[in-house]
């Protein structure tokens, strides 16, 4: 049962889309990013940090602080066996302006690997899938959280009250996202972006920092001749094959020893009667006959599988594919008989 529970938990977690992150938030949008109706509103950008497409349908975006949600979970879980996503749906129904369940059926909710999606916090869910039921409050701290389909917290951020209009609060770089941990809100990884420099650009639906291939840049800079990489790589190749060598050297020894032991048993079995026969009279022919009989017994006897089966005796093709099979054979005349 424990095993089943562990497997179920792992499966649930795997389905939980934990690789999605809140990536950039603008609270007051006076002259920035516009929606499909050319309207401006605060926006929240979500980033799929994984290398696979993630569907965000049925996930929850909320401004409710975790203590409110956790208290609600605790209270309700004592009363019923409802799952957390059901409890979040109930909470959505009771506080519709604070929690939003991303609707199903919109293909745009499938977020491609390493891609972004932007939600407008305009309080108008009728405007489309990517419009939230709440409006963020300028001049106040804004807490935003993302919950997965199981009702587990995926990511959260608290946007500082000091964030000016038309500026965003964003992760310094998407590269800082730790995919192996759960949500990792650390304020030092976030910054206020005012668009004054490239590093502080406001980038809805785009990368906050130019994706870089650290490895290539590092090798280009630190190992221009390639010697370092060569030594490391040859080391890895040798280590891998050396491990295989050691492993199969040991296996080889073990199996050779086993074979020797078996051979000794066989030899002993062959030698014993031979010796007896020699003691009785030293008849070479008798010894040869005994050896042959033993050889036949131990080695040369054909082993039949004992399985009976139907097997076609000739012509692999079926009657459907060959007219020849449908024709009667013409009797052959043999003049000799």
């Amino acid at each position, binding site marked *: 049962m424990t095993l089943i529970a562990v497997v179920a938990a792992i499966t649930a977690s795997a389905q939980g889309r934990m690789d999605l992150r809140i990536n950039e938030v603008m609270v007051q949008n006076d002259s920035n990013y516009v929606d499909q109706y050319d309207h401006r509103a605060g926006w929240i950008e979500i980033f799929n940090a994984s290398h696979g497409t993630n569907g965000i349908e049925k996930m929850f975006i909320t401004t409710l602080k975790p203590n409110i949600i956790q208290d609600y979970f605790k209270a309700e879980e004592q009363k019923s066996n409802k799952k957390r996503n059901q409890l979040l749906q109930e909470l959505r129904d009771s506080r519709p302006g604070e929690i939003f369940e991303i609707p199903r059926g919109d293909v745009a909710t499938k977020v491609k690997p390493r891609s972004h999606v932007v939600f407008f916090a305009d309080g108008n869910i009728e405007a489309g899938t990517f419009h939230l039921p709440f409006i963020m409050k300028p001049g106040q701290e804004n807490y935003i959280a993302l919950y997965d389909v199981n009702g587990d917290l995926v990511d959260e951020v608290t946007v500082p009250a000091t964030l000016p209009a038309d500026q965003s609060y964003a992760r310094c770089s998407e590269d800082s996202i730790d995919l192996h941990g759960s949500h990792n809100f650390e304020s030092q990884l976030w910054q206020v972006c005012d668009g004054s420099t490239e590093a502080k650009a406001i980038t809805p639906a785009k990368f906050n920092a130019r994706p870089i*291939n650290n*490895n*290539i840049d590092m*090798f*280009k800079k630190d*190992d*221009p*001749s*390639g*010697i370092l*990489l*060569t030594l*490391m*790589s*040859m080391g*890895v*190749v*040798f*280590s*891998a*094959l*050396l*491990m*295989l*060598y050691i*492993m*199969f*050297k040991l*296996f*080889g020894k073990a*199996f*050779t020893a086993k*074979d020797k032991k078996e051979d000794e048993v066989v030899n002993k079995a062959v030698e014993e009667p031979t010796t007896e026969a020699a003691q009785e009279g030293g008849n070479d022919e008798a010894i040869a006959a005994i050896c042959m009989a033993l050889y036949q017994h131990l080695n040369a006897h054909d082993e039949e599988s004992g399985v009976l089966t139907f097997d076609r005796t000739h012509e692999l093709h079926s009657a459907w594919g060959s007219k020849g099979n449908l024709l009667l054979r013409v009797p052959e005349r043999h003049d000799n008989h």
Partner: protein
Amino acid sequence: MVLLNIANNLEQFWHFTGFYNVTLEPSSLIMLCVGLLFIYLAIKHDFEPMLLVPIGFGILIGNIPFQPGNEIGIYEEGSVLNILYQGVRQGWYPPLIFLGIGAMTDFSALLANPKLMLVGAAAQFGIFGAYMVALAMGFMPDQAGAIAIIGGADGPTAIFLSSKLAPNLMGAIAVSAYSYMALVPVIQPPIMRLLTTKKERLIRMKPARKVSQTEKIIFPIVGLILTCFFVPSGLPLLGMLFFGNLLRESGVTTRLAKTASNAMTDMVTIVLGMSVGASTQASEFLTPDTIKIFALGFMAFIIATTSGVLFVKIFNLILPKHKKLNPLIGNAGVSAVPMAARISNDQGLKADPSNYLLMHAMGPNVAGVIGSAVAAGVLLGFLG
């Protein structure tokens, strides 16, 4: 009026024809000649015909001049060729080929004498030697890594790695890798003779012990776990290689092993070869980089052969007299299976007509397959 319409239509048709379009892209003619050369070499001189015929014909297909926009060309999204090319571009075909290689490879020679694995490892220096030279020639580290893998003498690995590290160079790398694999009988023997003495060439190796079926079954499982824990990035290639081998050795999946090693490998080889050939369009292929890639590929083969042979000579210094290896099997550390092993055998027979090295050379040869896949995984891990 009617005549004018006919003239307009004929002019339009003329613009669709290859005769007109070749005037816009005359370098296509050079590529057509390259394709014909490949087909000629394959049919007339039996140079890797299974590969050079599909690649050669693919080059013809990819270089027939046409007017773009009708979903015909390999780089036009939605065309049949483009769909087939995705298997190359995304690196799907090479692991399937590796599945077939695993299903047709008997690792007994290696298991009987596991120290030969180290020869397979040593020959991979061809890859990294070429990497250093490629860097010196001005290639970026990822491009240099993709080019250097030619030294592994393994076409599918070269395609797999270049599709990940330098897709724009993939056509040239693949053609170069397969060309040099076909030329292994020309490139390797002089180096082998140069680096060995007559006495060394006469060394007789101890006959291989019998390998039990249990060992053969354990090998792919342990091999996968050990190598992929070292280099998880090599998983697509190594995983399929060892899986194919388990199908073969388990004894209970003979039908699957047969399909993997025959029908499936043949089908993938056809599509892979043809798509790689077709991807070598003149505009992409006839560049100074291609010449450099061919030069580097040649160098990589020489370094790989040299390092394999020299490693055996050095290894012999620490081996007891009755366990010495014939340095002629060192060249087989490159993974051109079984061509490189056959060359070891031929050279051995030239020195001593009764000294058959084929089975001994098969050890480093199949170790080279594993080694080059590990090396590709290492490069992908560092530079990917």
